[in-house]
C-alpha cells in the first residue's frame, strides 16, 4: 500500500513556500498521517528554565486555539477519534496525528489552528504546567523506576551541556516559567527554518501545497542549532544511587559515544549492540546470560540511540534525532540480594564483548536480522514517515535503504573495530534505583565477593563462570558515588 518514499527538499523552486522542508509518503491508504516537526527542543531551553520547550509544545497540543477552547477542540475531535500528540526531545519537537481521509479537512483545520494560532489561555497554562510537574513528581519518580534510572543517567552524563536536563524540565523550573516566556519561546523557535512538514497516506495531491502555504505564516527565523558541546570526559566510573522505597534494584549504565546515524561506524555499532542486547528480544548476549541462564530479572538490553519508554513499546519512536548519543545498558529490576552480582555480570559480559568481539556466525546472523528487521521498523505509515524525517535531519538516504546498503558491504572486522574503538568497560556512569541507598553504596564500592546461589542446579559452565563474576571488579570508588533521595531528582 505504501508507495516509494519521496523525500523532497525543493530547493530549486523560486519561492520560500516551495523551499519548505517536506517529507511525504503518499499511498492509497484511507488514513492520513501527519508528523510536523520543529527542529528545536529542550536543548534550546535557557539554562535557567529547563522545561520551557516542553511546556510550549504541551500548550499547543493540550490547549485551546484563539478561536476555540481546549474543550471545544476535544469535542470536535471526538467523532473523528483523533488527537494531536506532542513529543519533545533535545533537538526535535514533533506534533503527530492521524485521521481518516473522510475527516481530513476538519482535522487539519483544528491541527493548523493549534500550531499556528494558539490560544495562550491562563487556565490551560495552569493545567499543562501542573500536569508536567505531576509527571515528574509522581509518574516518573514514583511509578517507573526503570525510566527514572535511564533519565538520571542521561542527565548525569550531559551535565553542564545543553543536553544536561531532562526534556520535561525540573519541578522548580516549571513552577517559575511564565506564560509570556512560553509565548516568546514559540515565536523564536517555531519558525519556517526549523520546520519539517511530514505527511503520509491517502491525501489529495494539492493538500501538501495548502499546508505549505499555511505554515508559511510562521516567521522565517534563523533556525536552531544547539551549541556544540561534548559531554565532559568521565575520569572514573561513577554512580548515582536514587534512594526510594521500592522492591527491587533497577540499573541503567552508559557512557557517551561520538557516533550518530550518519557516521560510518553507526551501522557496525548497531550490529554490535543488536547482538549484545536487541531491545525487548530474547537471544541477545545480555538477555541470555542474565535472564535465560540465571533468572536474575525480566530482561537486559543495549542501545546506541536514545530510546525512551522502552517498557511500553517494542520499536523505538522516531523523531528523537540527536547530535550526541550514548552507549547504554538497561538492566531491568533485580532482587536486592542479587544486585551486586548482577552489576558484575553486566560488566563481565561487556568485557567479553570488547575482548572477544563478535564471531563470524553471530555477525552474519545479526546482519541478516537487521536487514529484515528494517521492514518491521517501518511497517506503519507513521513510523515510515518519522524515519523519513529523521533521514532528512541527518542528511542521509531513507533509513531502510541506508541501513540495508551499509549492511550489505559490512564486514565482521568493521564491527569488531567499532567495538574496540567505542565500547569500554571503565569510565562508566552507573545509575541504580533502589532502597537503602547508603547500604547499596557500601556494597557496590567494596571488593567483597558476591557469590550467587540459585533455586536449581546449574551447569558446571555457569557455576565456574559465576566464580569469576562474583569477584569481577566494578571499579567504583566511594567518593564517586552519590546517593540522592528520590524526592530531589528532577527537583
Amino acid at each position, binding site marked *: 500500500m505504501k508507495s516509494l518514499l519521496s523525500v523532497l527538499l525543493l530547493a530549486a523552486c523560486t519561492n520560500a513556500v516551495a523551499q519548505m522542508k517536506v517529507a511525504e509518503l503518499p499511498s492509497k491508504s484511507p*488514513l492520513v498521517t501527519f508528523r510536523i516537526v520543529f527542529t528545536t527542543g529542550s536543548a534550546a531551553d535557557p539554562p535557567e528554565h529547563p522545561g520551557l520547550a516542553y511546556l510550549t509544545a504541551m500548550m499547543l497540543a493540550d490547549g485551546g486555539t484563539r478561536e476555540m477552547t481546549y474543550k471545544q477542540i476535544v469535542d470536535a475531535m471526538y467523532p473523528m*477519534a483523533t488527537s494531536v500528540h506532542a513529543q519533545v526531545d533535545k533537538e526535535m519537537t514533533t506534533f503527530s496525528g492521524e485521521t481518516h481521509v473522510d475527516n481530513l479537512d476538519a482535522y487539519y483545520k483544528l491541527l493548523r489552528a493549534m500550531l499556528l494560532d494558539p490560544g495562550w489561555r491562563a487556565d490551560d497554562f495552569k493545567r499543562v504546567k501542573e500536569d508536567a510537574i505531576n509527571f515528574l513528581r509522581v509518574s516518573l519518580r514514583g511509578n517507573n523506576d526503570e525510566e527514572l534510572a535511564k533519565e538520571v543517567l542521561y542527565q548525569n552524563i550531559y551535565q553542564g551541556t545543553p543536553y544536561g536536563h531532562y526534556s520535561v524540565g525540573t519541578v522548580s523550573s516549571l513552577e517559575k516559567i511564565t506564560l509570556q516566556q512560553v509565548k516568546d519561546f514559540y515565536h523564536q523557535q517555531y519558525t519556517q527554518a526549523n520546520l519539517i512538514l511530514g505527511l503520509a497516506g491517502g491525501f489529495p495531491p494539492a493538500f501538501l501545497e495548502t499546508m505549505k502555504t499555511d505554515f508559511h505564516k510562521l516567521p522565517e527565523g534563523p533556525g536552531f542549532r544547539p551549541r556544540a558541546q561534548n559531554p565532559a570526559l568521565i575520569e572514573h566510573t561513577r554512580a548515582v544511587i536514587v534512594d526510594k522505597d521500592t522492591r527491587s534494584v533497577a540499573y541503567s549504565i552508559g557512557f557517551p559515544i561520538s557516533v550518530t546515524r550518519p557516521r560510518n561506524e553507526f551501522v557496525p555499532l548497531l550490529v554490535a549492540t543488536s547482538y549484545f542486547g536487541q531491545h525487548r528480544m530474547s537471544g541477545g548476549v545480555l538477555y541470555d546470560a542474565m535472564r535465560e541462564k540465571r533468572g536474575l530479572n525480566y530482561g537486559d538490553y543495549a542501545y546506541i540511540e536514545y530510546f525512551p519508554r522502552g517498557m511500553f513499546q517494542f520499536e523505538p519512536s522516531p523523531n528523537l534525532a540527536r547530535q550526541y548519543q550514548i552507549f547504554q545498558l538497561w538492566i531491568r529490576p533485580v532482587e536486592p540480594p542479587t544486585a551486586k552480582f548482577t552489576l558484575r555480570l553486566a560488566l563481565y559480559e561487556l568485557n567479553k564483548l570488547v575482548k572477544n568481539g563478535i564471531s563470524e556466525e553471530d555477525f552474519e546472523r545479526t546482519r541478516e536480522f537487521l536487514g529484515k528487521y528494517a521492514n518491521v521498523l517501518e511497517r506503519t505509515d507513521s513510523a515510515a514517515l518519522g524515519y523519513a524525517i529523521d533521514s532528512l535531519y541527518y542528511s542521509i538516504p531513507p533509513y531502510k535503504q541506508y541501513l540495508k546498503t551499509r549492511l550489505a558491504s559490512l564486514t565482521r572486522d568493521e564491527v569488531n573495530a567499532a567495538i574496540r574503538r567505542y565500547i569500554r568497560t571503565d569510565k562508566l556512569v552507573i545509575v541504580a534505583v533502589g532502597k537503602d541507598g547508603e547500604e547499596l553504596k557500601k556494597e557496590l564500592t567494596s571488593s567483597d565477593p558476591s557469590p550467587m546461589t540459585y533455586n536449581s542446579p546449574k551447569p558446571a559452565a555457569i557455576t565456574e563462570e559465576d566464580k569469576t563474576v562474583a569477584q569481577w571488579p566494578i571499579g567504583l570508588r566511594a567518593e564517586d558515588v552519590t546517593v540522592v533521595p*528520590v524526592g530531589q531528582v528532577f527537583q
Partner: protein
Amino acid sequence: MIAKLALIACCTLAAFGAPAPQKVFPYHYAQEDLPNGLRLITVPTDYPNIVATYIVVQTGSRNEVERGHTGFAHLFEHLMFRGTQRFPSTKYDETMRRIGASTNAFTTEDFTCFHTTFSKEDLPTVLDMEADRFRNLKYTEAEFKTEALAVLGEYNKNSSNPFRKLDEVVFDTAFDRHTYKHSVMGFLPDVQAMPNSYDYSLKFFDHYYRPEFTTIIVVGDVKAKDVRKLVDRYWGSWKRGTFKPDIPQEPAQQAPRANHVAWTSPTLPIMTVAYKVPAYTDSNEDSVALDAVASLAFSRNSDLYRKLVIEEQKVDELGADHTDHVDPSLFEITARVKDPADIDYVRDQILATVKSFREKPVDAARLDALRKHQRYAFELQMDDSGAIAEVVAAYVALRRSPETINKIYDRYAELTPQAVQRAAAKYLVEDGRTIVTLTGPEDAK
C-alpha cells in the same frame, strides 16, 4: 508481558467474500476448522511483504482455579519460549533473529497470545516452529525454576506502579469466588512459590495447550489456501485433549464494598469506582450500552472530564475501562486526584454522574458522535497487518470468530439513548459497587 486490552471499537466484517458496501472492515477472511479442533483464520491484506501470526490460546488467569497456582497462564507464556528438542530456545531465538522477526506474547484474564511479525517468505518457517513448540514443548525442572524467577522479575518491575496495585486490590475486593479475583500476574506468594510447581506446570500444559483451545490468526501478504496447506502440514496431527475447565461462578454481590491501599511511596491519590457488569455479549445491547456509558460519561469528551480536569483542575487523569470479558467482570472508573482533600468530592462527582446516566437517557446527538468515534477509532488502529491481527485476536478470544465483530457493530447501530439508560440502571448500581482508594504516605486520610 501482561496485557489488559483496552476497549476496542467494533465494526462489520465481510463474511466469506460477500459484498460489504457499508462495512468499515475492508478485509475478507477465511475461517476454517481442522479435524483436530484447531481453528485457522486468515486475513489477506494489501500491506506488502509483511505477515503477522497471532496464536490465541483460550486460557488466561480466569482458568487458574487451583488455590496456590495463580499466575500460571502467564508463567506458561514464558515457558513457551523455553524450546523443544528440535528447536531448543537458542535455535528458536537464532532463527527468529535471522528472519528479522519481531516476536512476543501476552496474557490477559481470558487468553494467552503468541505473536510474530515477519517478512512473507518466512511464513513456512514460523508456522513450523510455532507448531513444534505448541506440540513438543520441553523444559527441565531446572529451566522451569529459572523461568519462574524471570516471572518474579516481571512482578518486580511492575511493582513500583500504584495503578497496578490499585487494580489488583479492586478485583480482589470485588470478587469472592470467580478467578477474576486475582490479577493475571497472580498473588505475590504464589509467584514466589512458582519454582516448586514443576509437576503442576506439566499438567497445565497438557490441559490447555490443545487444538480445541487454540486459534491461529494469519494476517498480511498471504493467500488463504497457501496458509491452510502449511497449517495442515505442521499442525494437522496435533492431538485434541479432553480437559473441560470448571470456572467457579461469582455469586451476586449483595452490598457495596470499599477498600483502601496505603502506598508507601509518594503519589497522588488514586480512586477506582467499580461495578459488576455482565460478560461480553453480541446478542443483546448490554456490552455496547456499557461501552457507551464509559465513553460518554468519563472520556475526554465527557461533561465530568470538562468539569474535573479542564475547569476545576482537581483531577489530572480520568477514564472508564469496560474491557470485554468471557465472564461477568467489572466496569471501572478511575481518577487521579491532585489534592487529597478532594478525594470525597471527586468520588461524589463520579457517583452523581453514574446516577444521572441511570436516571436520564443520553442526548441522541452525543450517541451519534459516539458511533462515529467508534467507527473511526476502529479504522485508525488498523494501520498495519500486525495491528489488524491484534484486533481480530481480542475478539477471537471471546467468541473464537471475527464474526462477532459484525454482530457487535450491529448492536452499536441499533443502540438507543433509552438502551444506554436501561443498562446503566440495571448494572451500575450500589449493591454491585466496589470503591478502592490509594493514597501515599503524606496523604493518609
